């Protein structure tokens, strides 16, 4: 094809910037991960400790629990986002009165800063003061105490994430739906398939690249959620919503345990990359499969 040099020239600014703001910190974190470094320990500064941080990490119950919670959180949140997003996208694909207004309104959550999302939800759900527990109690007799009940807190964070990010999923789904070729579906109907079969065997496979891309982006972000949950529950009650991002935040901010925090971060990052890589190769196959 064309001269490679031009290609590299076009690519290089991006690579250089990402190297500086992404890789340099990464190398530094990798380095710190091999050290014992807590600002307020008796012996100041960095002390080489080899793989001790990682050894400690594997047996760290709190970390493993937060990892498990995070995966649960991401899985539920993304699942619901896909379902609701798909439903809304189907709605938006057809015409109905007030559609353009609805389209704008439903994207509002996407625009709000995560910090403000957390603050708003906190105000809505404060037991005794927020409208949500008040009306749940009055209308349904449901005792809703986000700050005392672990399950309720977990599900509230899931619902908050769904509320915040479903519009994003809807938009990508809509994009996918709009550009679907109509012939295969019509053909299938002609061949006597029912609606469910068409959906399962024809529509879904065609939508798979979109779904996977969406999941890819959402997974990346859900696994590192901090701001919203920090505002809403602070990780409580107990450790019910102490997701990995927040867990690490607690290790390095108040505890100033930089070495251990670095190791925790790296392991989490590694884990995220592996998950993403699996998804990515799946998408890659889709892409290549679609092209040929």
């Amino acid at each position, binding site marked *: 094809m064309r001269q490679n040099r031009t290609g590299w020239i076009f690519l290089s600014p991006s*690579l250089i910037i990402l190297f500086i703001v992404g890789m340099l910190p990464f190398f530094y974190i990798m380095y710190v991960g091999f050290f014992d470094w807590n600002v307020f320990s008796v012996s100041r500064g960095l002390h080489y400790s080899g793989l001790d941080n990682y050894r400690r990490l594997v047996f760290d119950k709190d970390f493993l629990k937060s990892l498990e919670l995070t995966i649960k959180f991401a899985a539920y949140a993304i699942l619901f986002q896909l379902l609701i997003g798909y439903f809304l996208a189907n709605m938006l694909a057809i015409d109905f009165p007030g559609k353009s207004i609805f389209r704008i309104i439903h994207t509002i959550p996407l625009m709000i800063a995560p910090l403000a999302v957390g603050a*708003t939800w906190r105000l809505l759900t404060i037991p005794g003061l927020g409208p949500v527990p008040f009306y749940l109690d009055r209308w349904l007799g449901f005792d809703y105490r986000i700050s005392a009940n672990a399950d309720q807190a977990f599900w509230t964070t899931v619902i908050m994430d769904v509320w915040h990010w479903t519009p994003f999923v809807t938009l990508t789904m809509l994009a996918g739906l709009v550009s679907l070729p109509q012939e295969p579906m019509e053909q299938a109907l002609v061949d006597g398939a029912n609606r469910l079969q068409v959906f399962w065997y024809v529509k879904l496979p065609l939508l798979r690249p979109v779904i996977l891309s969406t999941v890819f982006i959402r997974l990346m972000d859900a696994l590192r959620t*901090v701001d919203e949950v920090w505002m809403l529950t602070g990780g409580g009650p107990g450790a019910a919503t102490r997701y990995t991002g927040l867990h690490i935040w607690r290790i390095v901010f108040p505890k100033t345990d930089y070495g251990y*925090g670095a190791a925790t*971060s790296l392991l989490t990052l590694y884990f995220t990359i592996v998950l*993403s890589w699996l998804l990515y190769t799946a998408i890659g196959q889709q892409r290549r499969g679609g092209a040929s």
Partner: protein
Amino acid sequence: MIVISARSRVELFDRPNFIIHSFFEENYTNIIYDSTFRGYMFNSVIVATCNALLVTILALLATYALSRWRLTGADNIFFWTITNRMAPPAVFLLPLFLMFTKWFKIGDWTLFDTRTGLILLYCVFNLPFSIWVLQGMIDGIPVELDEAAMVDGAGTGMILRRIIIPLAAPGLAITAILSWIFAWNEYLFAATLTSVHARTITTGLAEFVTVTGTNWGEMAAVATLTLIPSLAFISFVQRYIVMGLTFGAVKE
């Protein structure tokens, strides 16, 4: 949130309800007349806009290169750029803080508390995202168009201007818009790496969580105010978002 912002402090702790008794406009006027907050707003606008422009241009060049040239390891490079978005932010603040205050230092000048610093830094999450969205789109533009133009004697710059940019316009728009929103809403980096001059509106939001009574009313007012530019943006470009994603996500 809008409801809360309209209520006074005393009202906030009354029985919960969704009705606005009196529009407690002081929450708004307090903020609008506060020059500090106008400064924060201004910083946010500059940072988000410059970052969105920068990211879009860089991502366009990068994806164009990845799509049209057979570069060694292009697939891996592509994936690598995206991994930059995955890092849990808390720990990375430490090296970033050092970078902003010590590593890049020219005389007394550092990146700390500068808008430039934030504009560059936000590339770390916006650039991967933009490359991811744009990649599909650029791949979707038939290579034959390039080749035809080349036969007509057009250079690479000409091809970009005449063919790629117009055809990818919806995608570029959505990239810019979403990057703008991500940058506008970012909190943690801005809070750690700015001090007085380059503070953004989201860090201002956090300032309202003060010791003597979290000022929920004003906080909600700030949150509402921060929402307005995004809202204006989104209703303006709604069309492009759908178009952009259509091109980006599914390519035939």
